[in-house]
């Protein structure tokens, strides 16, 4: 093909391209936002895909439709990580977000607020905002509320009461030294003391978070969240404490490749089958363990105790690490979105959520509806906490969180030092 004909071909192709583009532009005017005549469709994305929750949310949507003629609620459940990491960020960036969707607090929320993606809620539904008390703080930016948690809980040890008895441990550890003693007693009895899903990185990282929480003062923790400043010595100390704890060989064999929640060989599976005595995990873990037992029931031997304090450390011994799931409205959502959110947060719906055993409700009046004794224990632990720090990786945002978790897993694998973790975090923060 000679040069002239090539250019002509390109010109023709370009012309055809413009034609196609203008055609699509013509058809795009049709619009799907309805509006005006009172017919409104609210889209709602949540993370309930299994267990009792999909049915509860469906019921809630139907009830809201009934109470608000002309409003249709389209609710869809998506797998949690996919929803938070892929679907919502892409929908927001594409300018076509769902009206009501789940938002993780901390770094993710701050990023979305900075891009004007979220609706401020304080004036629209003030009673709902105040109904959840201090748990709403992580969903606020500069004093403005952008999301409201419907569930919130803290991390602690899920343990096997029978194996503890077998190893002659009468009381759950309340200090780090007692925890180390318990690990030793379990080892001596031929029991794997602690299961950890380091293959998924974050479950291993939570160990360092706990040490950081107990080594750093609340002021340092709060400053770190806003300035991403990790120069205080307590951050390196946390790694040193973890390194020392790793020296006691508390974890199961091959923990670097163990997943947290998939299959019988995962850390939750080891708990479910009585092959490990403890697991440090969030408030959702009894459901996970229950799903991995032979009969699908939460085992009777399961118990819960909070992470012990560390003597002589600067951190508050009754501080806890936790997190929750919150809902937020997109900035362009109709005002009915906030009403739907208020309905979801109503005492009645919260009580039904609690009774389903899916998590700990945030409206305190609904806590009484909890039926699972382990969730009640976690709720009591939450109530006893002087201060709740949300998961550090969500608090610091994806970039720092990812680098931090990587550094911590390296320490677990003996391929890094406590100082490396802090350096990785600082390097990642510097790129923001």
């Amino acid at each position, binding site marked *: 093909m000679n040069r002239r*004909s090539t250019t*002509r*071909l390109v010109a*023709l*192709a370009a*012309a*055809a*391209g*413009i*034609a*196609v583009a*203008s*055609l699509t532009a013509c058809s795009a005017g049709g619009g799907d936002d309805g509006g005006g005549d009172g017919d409104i469709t609210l889209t709602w994305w949540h993370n309930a895909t299994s267990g009792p929750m999909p049915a509860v949310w469906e019921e809630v949507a139907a009830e809201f439709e009934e109470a608000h003629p002309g409003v249709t609620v389209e609710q869809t459940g998506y797998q949690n990580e996919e929803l938070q*990491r892929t679907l919502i*960020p892409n929908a*927001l*960036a594409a300018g076509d977000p769902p009206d009501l969707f789940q938002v993780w607090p901390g770094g993710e929320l701050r*990023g*979305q607020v900075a*891009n004007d993606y979220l609706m401020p809620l304080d004036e629209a539904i003030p009673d709902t905002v105040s109904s959840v008390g201090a748990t709403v703080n992580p969903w606020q930016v500069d004093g403005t509320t952008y999301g409201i948690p419907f569930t919130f809980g803290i991390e602690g040890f899920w343990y096997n009461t029978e194996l503890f008895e077998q190893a002659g441990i009468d009381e759950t550890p309340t200090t780090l030294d007692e925890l180390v003693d318990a690990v030793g007693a379990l080892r001596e009895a031929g029991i794997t003391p602690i299961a950890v899903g*380091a*293959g998924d*990185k974050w479950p291993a990282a939570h160990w360092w978070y706990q040490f950081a929480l107990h080594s750093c003062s609340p002021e340092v923790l709060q400053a770190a969240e806003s300035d991403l400043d990790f120069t205080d010595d307590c951050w390196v100390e946390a790694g040193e404490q973890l390194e020392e704890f790793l020296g006691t060989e508390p974890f*199961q*064999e*091959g*923990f*670097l*490749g*163990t*997943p947290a929640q*998939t*299959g*019988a*060989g*995962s850390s939750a599976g*080891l708990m479910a089958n009585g*092959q490990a005595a403890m697991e440090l995990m969030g408030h959702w873990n009894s459901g996970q363990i229950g799903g991995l037992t032979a009969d699908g029931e939460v085992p009777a031997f399961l118990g819960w105790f909070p992470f012990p304090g560390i003597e002589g450390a600067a951190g508050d011994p009754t501080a806890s690490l936790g997190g929750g799931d919150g809902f937020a409205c997109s900035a362009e959502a109709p005002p009915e979105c906030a009403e739907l959110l208020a309905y979801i947060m109503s005492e009645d719906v919260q009580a039904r959520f609690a009774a389903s055993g899916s998590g700990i409700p945030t409206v305190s009046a609904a806590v009484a509806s909890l039926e699972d004794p382990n969730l009640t224990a976690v709720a009591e632990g939450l109530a006893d906490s002087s201060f709740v720090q949300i998961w550090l990786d969500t608090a610091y*945002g*994806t*970039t720092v969180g*990812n*680098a931090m978790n990587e550094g911590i*897993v*390296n320490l677990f*694998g003996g*391929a890094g030092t406590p100082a490396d973790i802090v350096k990785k975090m600082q390097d*990642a923060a510097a*790129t*923001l």
Partner: protein
Amino acid sequence: MTSVIESVGPAVSAGSTPARHPRPGAGRARKRAEIVLFVGPALLLFLGFVILPVLLAGVYSFYNLPQSFQWDDLADPERFVGFANYARALEDPAFIRSVGNNFLILSLSLLIQGPLAIGIALLLNRRLRGRGVLRLLIFVPYVLAEVIAGLSWKLLLQPQGGVNALLEALGLGAFTQNWLADPNIALWTMFAILTWKYVGFAILLMLAGLQGVPEELAEAAAIDGASWWQVQRHITIPLLGPTIRIWAFLSIIGALQLFDMVWVTTRGGPLNATSTMATYMVEKGQFGGQPGFGSAVAVILFLISLVVALVYQRFALRRDLAGSITRGVR
């Protein structure tokens, strides 16, 4: 819009009705219009969904972008970092490790999977009882979805998983390993899974290639007194050459872009022991919230693949491809 109709219209009508002013170029113009009509939409899709993203990745790679970036971030001079993302990747031991892993998998594939596939194909090409069943069994892993195969192996190879349990049951407890959890052996385990998955495809290719080797040559050689092995060594394998070289090409590209099996089973861990350029890119770009850095890694991966592919085409495939795929190869 109307200008397009004018430019396309006459060319089309020139064909359907007798042209009033017959021109020698009319036929050719019609042909070109047809080409534009039929190739245009596909070309637009290709440009929009393949070429444009590649170019954009090149652009992004020069910026330090936040996780959910907007177009105005590209206009922010403070976000422009030049080649810093590339330098950062090339200085990161984890990335160097990933590149090394890719090339180790590549070499192992060529050195182990190739001979294995040729050997099995030669065996399966003989008259053999149960040949059909054997062929089917060998090809099944390749048909299985990557994610399903990966998850199954992940579960089987856990420290408390099926493989170790089987070894214990057979009295081989001494051979139990943390297959995917031990940084020293995880990559070898990964290679074993990949071989299990892909050797069936290689065998299938080789078997197809063997169909093109004329039986008369082997018969003639046998009459001359050549043994079975001599026939394979001096006649069959040399004639299988083109198939082997094409398979090697596919294998090389596959090894360089290896992603899904690793992602499903180990996600690059433990301690980067099984990470590849592609998993590193997704880990940093998507999950590490650094799309600019991830784009730089993508460009490096693209360049390495391109160079390897071109070199291979130039030197190994030159005869096989003469006149077929590219006109540039002589």
